[in-house]
């Protein structure tokens, strides 16, 4: 399983490095979303800083769906999926490989967006010990859910519209817990206990990763 995961992740990252869709489409989309939110709220530094955690995670969420669409496109047509099945690739390995490649992209995206909210929303990170694990755990959960629902959404002709409908409600816990953990890491809002929200993010990541490992194969078969 791990060998196949490494193979698939290497393939996906090689394709992404060559096509540069993440850099030229997904990343600008995420930054644009963040900027538009800022325009909508107006030039009120207090309001911007207070809204920053939620808006940061909304931008990540929307961009992650776009990145997942791209990941599914890399996985290819039904013919390439059939070819992968004929090669004997472990479906759980394929899931983990796609998750790994997408995770790298989303973590990089989070880093850029974090720089964006620091610059445009006037927030200052005070607790990296909470923020970094929350970014990582939320990214794992988001990527696992996106890859799993991407497989459920099926072929490209319906996936583009169906995937956001499936994913966005399902990842609401990431939005809530991620925003709370973010709030507790910066000098805005009450935030609550960061560790508690890290727990929620960890449970979400573990549940969706486990579901993906178990269900990805049967979903692709069907």
């Amino acid at each position, binding site marked *: 399983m791990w060998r196949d995961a490494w*193979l698939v992740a290497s*393939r996906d990252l090689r394709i992404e490095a060559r096509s540069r869709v993440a850099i030229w489409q997904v990343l600008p989309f995420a930054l644009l979303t963040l900027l538009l939110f800022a325009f909508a709220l107006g030039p009120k530094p207090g309001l911007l800083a207070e809204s920053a955690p939620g808006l940061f995670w909304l931008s990540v969420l929307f961009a992650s769906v776009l990145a997942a669409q791209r990941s599914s496109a890399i996985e*290819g047509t039904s*013919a*390439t999926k*059939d*070819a992968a*099945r004929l*090669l*004997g690739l472990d479906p759980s390995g394929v899931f983990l490989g796609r998750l790994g490649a997408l995770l790298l992209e989303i973590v990089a995206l989070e880093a850029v967006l974090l720089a964006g909210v620091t610059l445009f929303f006037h927030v200052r990170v005070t607790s990296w010990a909470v923020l970094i694990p929350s970014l990582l755990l939320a990214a794992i959960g988001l990527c696992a859910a996106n890859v799993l629902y991407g497989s459920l959404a099926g072929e490209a002709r319906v996936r583009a519209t169906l995937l956001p409908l499936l994913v966005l409600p399902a990842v609401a816990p990431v939005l809530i817990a991620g925003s709370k953990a973010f709030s507790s890491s910066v000098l805005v809002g009450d935030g609550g206990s960061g560790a508690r929200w890290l727990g929620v993010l960890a449970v979400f990541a573990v549940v969706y990763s486990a579901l993906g490992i178990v269900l990805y194969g049967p979903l692709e078969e069907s």
Partner: protein
Amino acid sequence: MAPAISLRSAVVVAGNYPVLSGVDLDLEHGHVCVVLGANGAGKTSLLRLLSGLATLTAGTACVLDCTLPDEGASLRRQVGLLGHDVGLWDDLYPAENLRFALRAARQDPSLATEALERVGISGKTAKTRLGLLSEGQRRRVGLALLIARRPQLWLLDEPHAGLDASTRLLLSELVESAAQGGATVVATSHEPELSVPMADVVLTMRGGAVIEQRLGGRLRPRGVSDVA
């Protein structure tokens, strides 16, 4: 030795529609079978059943000693399928595609270069993204994967389509070479003048069923009398 392929009243249903409606077929190891028929006759569905990709709904099917549908996963690893879409990744170079496929199939990735050279994919073409190659070149890359993988069962869906004269000749040589090496080949075709001469058995399908089975034109040292 059990036949390479043994189907009895094999039925495959897609949605509510029977794409195969009771197919009987016996094919020995090392034999070449060509399947003729109009569009929608069930040729591609037959290949998908034989590859373990389509689910057997009724009847019995044993392919390369794997009983379907239970042992479909074991069967797939022994099968090479060349379809209309070669099933490779457009953003990878031909050699990268083959190396990935060979690694995934637990085979030696160094076989990729030799296989590509055998089908005439070398130099600048080998370092071009697959998606930028012509249809014929893409099919050659698909053929190279079959050469490198050396599957026991070759399934070719209209293999002559989109190929130039020299590649068609190469295809005939590869099929003959695979069969002589003991592999079984099943190829669908709309071009009987090209495909029947390389066949031991020729099937004609209509409406998901085999309506005619006859001997092909392939000359074999042991004769064709053993082909029922």
